[in-house]
């Protein structure tokens, strides 16, 4: 297997896994009490998830090598998902 692409994929996988592991720390923000609303944490969770999805699409699904239109369509969906999820949450809770 091509050493450069294999190493790049491994770095991507390690980075995605490391980001996921940092989310374990989120469990302690409520101090072991009942969960409380937290707009900053929610925005961060959704933002991190969309970032991870974009990395999966561009790196593992090879959209970075695909025609520009495909990259724009996937980015458009990510922007739409981010705006609608964060918008609905913030309008409903803040």
């Amino acid at each position, binding site marked *: *297997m*091509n050493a450069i*692409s*294999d190493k790049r*994929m*491994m770095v*991507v*996988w390690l980075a*995605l*896994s490391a980001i*996921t*592991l940092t*989310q*374990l720390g*989120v*469990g302690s923000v*409520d101090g072991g009490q*009942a*969960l*409380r*609303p*937290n707009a900053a*944490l*929610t925005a961060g*969770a*959704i933002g*991190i*998830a*969309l970032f*991870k*999805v974009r990395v*999966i*699409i561009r*790196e*593992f*699904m*090879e*959209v970075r*090598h*695909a*025609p*520009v239109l*495909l990259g724009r*369509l*996937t980015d458009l*969906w990510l922007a*739409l*998902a981010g705006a*609608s*999820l964060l918008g*609905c*949450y913030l*309008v*409903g*809770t803040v």
Partner: protein
Amino acid sequence: MTTAAKAQHRFVPGQPDMWAFVLFEALVFTAYFVVYVVCRTRSLDLFLQSQAHLDLRVGVFHTLVLLASSWFVARCVQAARERSFRAALTNAYLTMLFGFVFLVSKVLEWAAKLDEGFGFTTDEFFSFYYFLTAIHFLHLLIGFVALGIAVHQLWSPARRSQELVETCATYWHTIDFLWVLIFALLYVMR
């Protein structure tokens, strides 16, 4: 490399029809997620109380397992492209293995929740929890059919369609990134 040369080297991984399906699925799941967030903001206390019964560590484990499976299927595509079919098959089997670990772990999580008395009709949060995880589970089962097709292609020198292998991998990655969003909405957000 010039812009024109770069454009010439660009390619759609797999069949374009699969990408149309991926974008359609992404939009359908986005609609589910928006309905979930709207319902959540209307009954925030109830959703937070019920969410506290989920184990974040299990969600993280599921995410790590699917990320690993995505990595292996990406390696499978690379190996097949370089005509290293033995390596491609090994990576396809590893993808299946991690997918299977996810399936078993998800069933165990459901069984534990049901044992604790949290069923589909317990409250609105658990209705969404079972709906979103079950529909994702169904997609994962279909993903095994896709992986089976990829293995069937890689097995015999008479077949080995790179386009089909890439198409199956594209579907598997879709299952992975949909789970990344489900994990954030069910386990992490507040």
